[in-house]
């Protein structure tokens, strides 16, 4: 008897969303198959994309191997962003660490001016990630949204605690919301439901929170997998958004990644590969060589389907 491999066909489609403007704008999502299920019926019109992360201040805890590719530019975020573009990143993710009230506590206006300068000086799209202090971000992120009006940035983290004020600024100034919740499918859905009271669902990207291998990675993996399955198979409208994996910052704070270069690159690339398999549509990494390693691993041709 001849074996015939089963072929699945799903009717749920992940929303297709664009970040940035112009030729280098990124398209995310749009698939109605599970990650890497190229043998099933359906398509994945947009291959996963890779952003490199920069900080708005000189890093204090990055290992030398991670600083090395950027050694002449780390004190200047604009030059740093350009360097990322040269390395072939699909986007630059700028983390506004200096606005943290527990650190340098820089003002919202300073942050907004810097993001605009960065966005104006590169052609690839910009993602903006606040300090993570929900109150300060509620001041900083709306300023950034306003200063970069119409640039269609991905701005976050939009949290349960500040989604109204940050989400409305994102709506008003033509951006996308980077909606983050703490590793919990129910909270993730709740945040999307609440955002959708005023923000169209096709302007939300889900961040379920990423973790590095060995640091609770299984939670991130199963959660992302579940979000994708709910969207594609069950057609839960509140989980049918593209997902972002912000993993570089998680990987490079581990002692394993800091130990030596080879280990660091493998740690970052393997974590990213895992999250790709789970369903991430865009990944934020820190080392340009990790991206090369990943692209080599997953190949290019399969993504043409």
């Amino acid at each position, binding site marked *: 008897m001849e074996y015939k491999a089963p072929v699945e066909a799903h009717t749920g489609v992940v929303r297709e969303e664009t970040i940035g403007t112009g030729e280098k704008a990124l398209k995310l999502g749009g698939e109605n198959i599970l990650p890497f299920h190229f043998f099933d019926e359906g398509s994945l019109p947009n291959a996963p994309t890779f952003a490199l992360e920069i900080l708005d201040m000189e890093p204090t805890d990055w290992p030398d191997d991670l600083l090395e590719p950027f050694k002449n530019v780390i004190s200047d975020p604009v030059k740093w962003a350009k360097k990322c573009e040269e390395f072939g990143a699909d986007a630059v993710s700028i983390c506004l660490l200096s606005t943290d009230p527990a650190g340098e506590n820089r003002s919202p206006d300073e942050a907004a001016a810097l993001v605009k300068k960065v966005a104006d000086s590169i052609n690839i799209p910009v993602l903006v990630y606040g300090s993570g202090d929900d109150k300060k971000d509620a001041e900083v992120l709306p300023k950034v949204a306003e200063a970069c009006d119409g640039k269609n940035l991905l701005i976050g983290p939009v949290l349960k605690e500040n989604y109204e004020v940050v989400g409305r600024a994102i709506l008003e100034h033509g951006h996308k919301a980077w909606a983050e919740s703490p590793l*919990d*499918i*129910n*909270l*993730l*859905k*709740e945040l999307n*439901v*609440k955002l*959708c*009271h005023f923000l169209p669902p096709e302007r939300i990207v889900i961040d379920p929170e990423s973790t590095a291998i060995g640091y609770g990675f299984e939670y991130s993996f199963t959660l992302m997998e*579940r979000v994708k399955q*709910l969207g594609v198979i*069950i057609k*839960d409208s*509140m*989980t049918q958004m593209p997902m972002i994996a912000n993993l570089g910052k998680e990987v490079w704070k581990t002692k394993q990644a800091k130990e030596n270069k080879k280990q660091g690159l493998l740690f970052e690339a393997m974590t990213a590969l895992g999250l790709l398999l789970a369903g991430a549509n865009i990944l934020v990494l820190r080392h340009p060589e990790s991206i090369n390693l990943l692209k080599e691993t997953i190949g290019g041709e399969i993504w043409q389907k």
Partner: protein
Amino acid sequence: MVVIGENIHVIAKVVNDAIKARDAKVIQDLAKVQAEGGADYIDLNLGFCRKDPTVMGWAANMVQEVVDLPLSIDTMNPLAMEEGLKVCKKKPLLNSASGKADSKEQMLPLAKKYNCDVVISVINDKGMPAEGDSKLDSIMDTVAYANDLGIPNENIWADPIVLPVSTAGEGQKNALATYEFIEMVPEALPGLKSTVGLSNISNGAPMELRPLLNHVYLIMLARKGLYSSIHDALDKEIMDISKDRKQKLVDLVYRTWDGEEIDPSSLSQEEINYVKTTKVLTGEVLYSDAWLEG
């Protein structure tokens, strides 16, 4: 449905204070209003009663002075349990035993000694079985042990353990396992009854929405043949549901559960909420605290 009124519970400050002060009136008033509300049993949850196990006997006597209902003696302390059971005038309910070794050794013999009814949960030394099948396996083991002690199936009320539906991922799965369990019990263990601690389903959900989850879940469990439920006997709506006085809402829940697409424009807001809640409790829609919105 047999309702065990849960309102005399040590977690309520007024009850806790009354027990400490041995203030009978507070306890008696709570028992009376529950009886008027339609409760069939009065649950006495006085905590572990570590300092003075005899308080259970005192409370049971006080309640029996004013209401003519059987009592559910609710404590983890075998000494307090016996203090309660020995003064009961009507056949009481021992609440509760489980498949854990110490419970089998200390609680089940009391159920035999006083020939009372006994709640046995599916918990065992390995923890809480998650699937319908494994819940049933666990209860079958403990029931076999109880039968050997001389406790007949007719005296046993099986508790599958309700978990909060809001527990990430697991809560909804457990809700489904509970329906399965309740459906399977009569065939697997003829004569056995079933009961649940209902309000745990809504633990962690927004306070104002908790009753809705409790109501719909009770309707769904009742459809599967649930014999009894421990819940708020002062919630008029849930008492109406328990006593089959809400047929229209019950029908609506059944139709939703059976997959019928009901036109929302034909429904009141309350009915729409029942439909949405049913879909969460069947596992069709992923739970979030905002399940009524959007």
